[in-house]
């Protein structure tokens, strides 16, 4: 009697936003093996960035690697390009970059949380989280001029200034949002049925997190405190604006939710600090040089460590650009973490990974 069944999830599946294919081998509904196919979104951006686009255009192209963390991509690329150009950027630009990165993190984390809620079968919480999330989209729209593709960081600085009325509206909206967030935390933390679905589900132990080199909230929920903001200070002064690291120990879906929710508080604090202490100065510093040599750069995207490697050869076109997205590091762990869970929890687990396949396969 064959007791093992294959259940496919994806490429098109309602619980997935992106084309991504999992093949679960299950016993009844218990998963014993997972196979993943993550190469659906491979578009060839790396090659195009090294051949078709000039290095200044690349900053807009890498933004389209991922719509959720486009600001991280553009900032990371801008920084690596600045390293190649040996360019220093104004402090105001740095602060504005951090501001948008953190705003983006808020919207991305809220999206992820709502996705977890939806995939746990809690439609009302999805609606609630999405309702509360709208403010971050409006703020981003006001700051950058678009709801998702910000194109805010460009080589040498940022593209737009932060208007004072917008800065004020950010602070105002945060005042409204904070109690809403408290309420959300309360629901995610204590709702009984949600805890049935989330607690002890999809557990990644700290040992596994270290062994599999996991990054981002995924790792932090397992107790592995890996956060680029905590590790570098050279390009963006995170500590200065009040960054603190959030970790949890359980490593399950619930812990990931909690880490994300707490990080939203940290992001809000950072944003408030930035707005209150925004230095005056230029937005952009320019140079006519061409990229030369090789450089690497890391930045903390909402999903974890984003890594760029670039090599220039004194022409308009880069010789090599390597993008390592956070989800790319997490996929080996994701595939292992499904094992021994019910198929019923799969959507929630996928949601809690917050995968970004368009980053992964580019």
């Amino acid at each position, binding site marked *: 009697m*064959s*007791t093992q069944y*294959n259940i496919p999830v994806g490429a098109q599946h309602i619980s997935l936003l992106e084309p991504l294919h999992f093949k679960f081998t299950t016993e009844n509904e218990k998963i014993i093996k997972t196979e993943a196919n993550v190469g659906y979104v491979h578009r060839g951006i790396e090659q195009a960035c090294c051949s078709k686009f000039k290095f200044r255009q690349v900053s807009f192209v890498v933004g389209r690697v991922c719509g959720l963390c486009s600001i991280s991509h553009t900032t990371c690329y801008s920084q690596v390009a600045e390293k190649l150009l040996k360019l220093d950027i104004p402090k105001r630009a740095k602060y504005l970059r951090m501001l948008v990165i953190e705003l983006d993190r808020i919207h991305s984390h809220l999206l992820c949380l709502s996705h977890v809620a939806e995939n746990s079968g809690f439609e009302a919480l999805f609606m609630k989280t999405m309702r509360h999330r709208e403010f971050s989209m409006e703020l981003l729209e006001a700051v950058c001029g678009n709801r998702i593709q910000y194109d805010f960081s460009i080589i040498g600085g940022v593209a737009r200034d932060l208007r004072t009325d917008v800065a004020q509206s950010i602070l105002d909206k945060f005042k409204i949002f904070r109690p809403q967030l408290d309420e959300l935390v309360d629901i995610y933390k204590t709702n009984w049925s949600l805890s049935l679905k989330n607690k002890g589900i999809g557990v990644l132990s700290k040992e596994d997190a270290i062994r599999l080199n996991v990054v981002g909230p995924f790792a932090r929920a397992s107790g592995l405190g890996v956060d680029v903001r905590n590790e570098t200070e050279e390009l963006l002064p995170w500590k200065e604006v009040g960054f603190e690291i959030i970790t949890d120990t359980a490593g399950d879906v619930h812990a990931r939710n909690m880490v994300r929710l707490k990080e939203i508080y940290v992001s809000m604090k950072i944003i408030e600090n930035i707005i209150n202490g925004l230095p005056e100065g230029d937005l952009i510093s320019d140079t006519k040089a061409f990229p030369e040599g090789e450089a690497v750069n890391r930045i903390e995207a909402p999903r974890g460590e984003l890594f760029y490697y670039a090599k220039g050869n004194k022409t308009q076109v880069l010789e090599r650009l390597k993008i390592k997205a956070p989800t790319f590091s997490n996929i080996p762990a994701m595939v292992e973490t499904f094992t021994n869970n019910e198929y019923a929890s799969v959507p929630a687990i996928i949601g809690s990974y917050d995968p970004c396949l368009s980053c992964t396969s580019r």
Partner: protein
Amino acid sequence: MIALIESLFLIPIAVSALLLLLPKTAARFLTILATLVLSAIAIYLFTQATDRPIQFAVSPVVNKIVMIADFSLLLFVIGAGLKQKNILVWVLAILQLLVLGYLTTKMSETQSTQFYVDKLSIFMFILVNVISGVIAVYSLKYIDEEKCSWFRKKYFISMIFWFMAAMNLLAAADNLEYFYLFFELTTLASYLFIRFRKDDESKKNALTALWMNQIGGLAILAAIVYTVLTAQYGNPSFSDLIAKGNSVAIILPFAFLCIAGLVKGAQYPFNKWLIGAMVAPTPVSALLHSSTMVKIAPFIILRISPVIKGTPVATVMIGLTAFVFVAAAIGALAQDTFKKILAHSTIALLALMILMAAVGTPVAVTAALILMLFHGLSKCLLFLNAGVLEHVFHMKQTSDMSKLGEAGPFTALVVAVGFMSLLLPPFGAFVGKWFSIETIGTVASGFKIVAPLVLVCIATGGAVLSLLYFKVLGAMISRTGESDKVKFEHIHPIYESTLIFLLCALLICTLALPWLLPYYFTQVAADTTGLALIPVIQQGTNIYIGSVHLPLIPMLIAFILLPFGIIAGLFVRFKHVDRAKEYMCGEKVEYNFSSFYFSTDKATPYFVAIGILFFVSIVLVAFFM
């Protein structure tokens, strides 16, 4: 009348002997003829049955023969036990031999009649002769396809008739000593049947069946000894026992008879032998499950139900059977082999029948009878079909059956109707189950706390069984596409005719239920319980039997919806409708999904332990009351 009844005993024996001698075609002819004759006699008896039971004695020579047969049978069993080094078999047989020897010295010459044919016996005659006859005809073809010598093929058919004779005798036996012999005869027959294939597993399972049924034999002997030793009872015969049972407040012999019945009915913890019997050729399983062997259990309980009704023994039995109903249903869930699923569900439904018999009110007995008849028909149909699946389509596991819809639409249809008939309205088995629930509800106050628990068990067990049937039917029905026209498979006419006969019998009996109920079942029930006939009142479109009623219109519509719906579902073809392929997330994934599987490995020891507890408590309760 008496001659007819005797012919029911003698014809099968004669046929059985003749079959061994005759050549193939003649044997085939004789089998069909004998089946027809036996069925005709049984049905004739049914039409002629009167309210007064027929009692008759046989010449004292027969007593001697019976005695000799008893001893030789036991000696054979001891021989078999010793030869195959199964300590349980021969120890139990020697025990019986000793008890029997003691009895022969102790017992006076019996004065009473040895045979007692009431309506219940005739009900059994019909069940045994018609259904076993169909199985005999079916096995003509089936055994032809087995790999064994021609003599053993004839021997197989002749064994079926022998079995029928034993069953007929058993159903008519009044004297407990005779009853013991016929009981042991069926045990022996089943032993020989189970080891028919003569491989290691068959032999092992046959021995299991043997020793387990020996316990039943021992229990009957214990009952006889107790009766003989207790002065008040008089002769060890059913009629005497039942007549005096209510006045004598000792029910220990009945408790022993109950145990004999429960062992034959393969209730936990003795369920193993019936499951093990699946190694035999399929007609044997059909025989054991539908009409003969296991039906002895509800038969004995029904026989003694007037006495045990309302006693603590009955209460314990109700508890046991209610528990077995759930446990066996759960056990069935864990199976994948088609025949094993059927075996487990048989145990579950038998538990329900025994439960109803133990409750013993007229309506409950009616429910038990309905269940016996329809379960016999449905199970026979399903087992014969299992044989067809094995021999024609080579499918043994339910998970292999996914292509059945295309390969054999008729067989698939039979499986579908067979399973549906065990569960869903409007079929008789459903009516039986429904009556049982309502009956226990109505008599609940008599059982205090037991009744609600029993009801929970029945409700849960019923739900588990429905899950089981959906699982099996689901495995069978799954398919990708379909051909434009249904092409029925060609199976051998013997297979086809027997299956169609049973199918028709099932449908006709279901349709005839409103008439069968007042004119047959309630009368048999009245006869069995010895109580007044429960009036069957037709009021508008409802038929009231005691406290429960059968609304005809919903049943009729359900009858149209379900069987014809399923038939139409399998054979209807929509024209001008485009076909689409299944949704697979846009991927091309190898499909290998079927229904959930369940495992009862952990639970089985507990089930057995609880079963043993119940068995012990039957004796204890009877002893201390």
